[in-house]
């Protein structure tokens, strides 16, 4: 493998991993920026997305858990991946809206530490609930065979790189479209303007007579929908188990916004891509060091550029 093709492969793998990080990061950052609310249950939303995707897409064969014990061996709609792409964000949106109403809202005025702790507890509850109902076992990843009539599995021939998994390429494209759409909603619509202004100074927005509280539920739900969507994308190439919310989503989401700069959508996208490419580069060369280097990078950014690469404000400082 030549150096160039190796570099391009790293870049593609990095973009694909980075896209998941970016989706998670955008969700977390708009919630953090607008409501100054720290959501440690963000990983749990990813978890919900992954399992919702599994159950909408396929009929999953259960091996333990409450449903299995009550005689249900197969569960799921088997409605195909397209249905999952549509339904999962909606499920995430609804869960997020409920979460904002009943858990987050009472904690807006309380100490940052309390917010962290209550959402941490909520994350534990959701993880356990999934484990109890659907079972604690690991499910295989759910890459679709075809999507919209186009073949999605198998390798694809690319210039320079040669053969590359087709689905991984599509992930970059699909996630890219969603990220761009989010970017346009935030940057080009009136709603986005309110959210953006809210991340800068929510009190000022309220003083201008804009009912920003009403936008809160919408922003929270949107962030949750993005996290759930990230969960679906993640589940399409990684295994699914109740631990993934804490292990694969929560910590990377925080690292992403810390690197990119809290409260900035562009920062979250950039942060996700930077982390994704760094991890991919080391996974391909010195795989044992990949995560150590990722955390080291975050520590360096925090020490030398605490506002992040693109951020202008420090939240919670």
């Amino acid at each position, binding site marked *: 493998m030549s150096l160039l093709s190796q570099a391009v492969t790293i870049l593609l793998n990095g973009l694909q991993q980075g896209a998941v990080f970016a989706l998670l990061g955008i969700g977390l950052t708009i919630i953090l920026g607008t409501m100054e609310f720290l959501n440690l249950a963000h990983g749990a939303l990813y978890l919900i997305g992954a399992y919702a995707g599994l159950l909408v897409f396929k009929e999953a064969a259960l091996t333990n858990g409450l449903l299995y014990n009550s005689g249900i061996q197969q569960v799921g709609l088997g409605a195909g991946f397209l249905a999952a792409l549509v339904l999962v964000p909606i499920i995430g949106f609804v869960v997020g809206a409920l979460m904002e109403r009943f858990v987050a809202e009472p904690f807006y005025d309380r100490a940052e530490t309390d917010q962290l702790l209550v959402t941490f507890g909520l994350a534990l509850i959701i993880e356990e609930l999934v484990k109890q109902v659907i079972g604690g076992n690991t499910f295989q990843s759910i890459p679709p065979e075809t999507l919209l009539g186009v073949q999605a599995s198998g390798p694809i021939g690319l210039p320079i790189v040669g053969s590359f998994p087709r689905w991984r390429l599509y992930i970059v494209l699909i996630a890219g479209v969603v990220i761009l759409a989010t970017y346009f909603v935030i940057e080009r619509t009136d709603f986005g303007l309110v959210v953006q202004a809210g991340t800068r100074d929510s009190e000022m927005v309220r003083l201008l007579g804009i009912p920003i509280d009403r936008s809160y539920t919408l922003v929270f739900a949107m962030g949750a929908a993005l996290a759930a969507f990230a969960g679906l994308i993640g589940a399409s190439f990684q295994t699914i188990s109740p631990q993934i919310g804490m292990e694969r989503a929560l910590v990377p989401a925080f690292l992403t916004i810390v690197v990119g700069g809290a409260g900035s959508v562009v920062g979250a996208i950039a942060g996700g891509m930077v982390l994704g490419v760094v991890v991919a580069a080391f996974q391909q060369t010195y795989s044992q060091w990949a995560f150590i280097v990722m*955390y080291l990078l975050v520590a360096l950014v925090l020490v030398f550029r605490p506002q992040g690469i693109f951020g202008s404000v420090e939240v919670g400082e």
Partner: protein
Amino acid sequence: MSDDTEPDGGPVVDEATERVDGSTDDLLERILARDDLVVVGFVLSLFVFPYLLVNLLTQIGEAIGFSIGGYVGLPTLVLIFGIVVIGFNLLLGYTGLLSFGHAAFFGVSAYAAGIFTAEATAFLPTAVAHSPLAMVGVGTFAALVIAWPIGFVSIRRSGVYFAVLTLTFGQMLYYYALGPGAWLTNGDNGFSDVNVGHLLGTFELEEAILGADFLRAYTWQYVFVAVAAVFALWMANRIINSPYGLIFKALGQNEQRVSFVGLDVFRYKHMAFIISAGFAGAGGALFAIHETYIHPTTSLYWITSGDFVIMTILGGTGSLVGPVLGALIFEYVSNVISGVSLPVIGAIGSLWRFVLGAVFVVIVWVFPKGVYGGVRDVVVALTGRGDDDGGEEA
């Protein structure tokens, strides 16, 4: 009386009226408000704790048909985590810094103590190299050594950034122990070459101090850990009630004012961080002695840091022994209640984390002072407050 030591112990008005009353109820509250009496109470309770947890609960369990009794090693485990969270609380409860990386100090100390027993025989007599006291010394020292640079960097940020920074350092050590550091730690297979010798060269840690069955939970290991726990609590008490510790509390309340007074905020926070890491280190070394096996996931992984947070909050921040109560509840529920099988639902099994999460949310939501603070409030409300209400109405 308690005004000198603990201004937050309760409303001053209450105490003034109660002092006039001089009833036994107000004695109780005064005891609860005084930290050094709490230490004495802690020591006394340690004498009966293993009996209550292991023997009595087993007997009650047999009577009602559920196995709710603790096993012999459980009191020791509770106190080990108790030591860790006493130190964690110095940081979270008093200084107001939430660290998500204390597993780093816990784990590094456990590994240092374990590796010391395996390697030190080359240049030290076996009696020293395998001595539990030396293990605790080496482990705590290792924790302090890595806490210095980690604290030096992390303290520069506050809030979420502090939490994330401590998390990143902990995770770096975790992945190092799991992968590149496997030559030292034996990676994912875990480090099992922990050789624990006799305490002071004479006492076998696994043996009970006396042969009687009702004393079966009183092993030498329990005695060792209990002495360490008392020492830890005594030291925390000394720190908090010293002028130095007063500055820790002041930092938790208003950092800006501390700096206005002319004190070096960074230095005090850094010291609080290192001291707290020392407690985690002592606990980690004792954990290595207790388990004689160390795995990155049980020692260094960030979930362990999360467990420390849960225990501390559960028990109650801002009181010295509160977190120990949290450690007791956490370990009891995770080790004993998880094995209980109920008639309708069946085995509780892994449901314990669900219950724990729910309890945790309720506590953060309703009782920010934790179980200990909640119980204390109830006691005060039942005794002192009741009298006062009557007085006010009249």
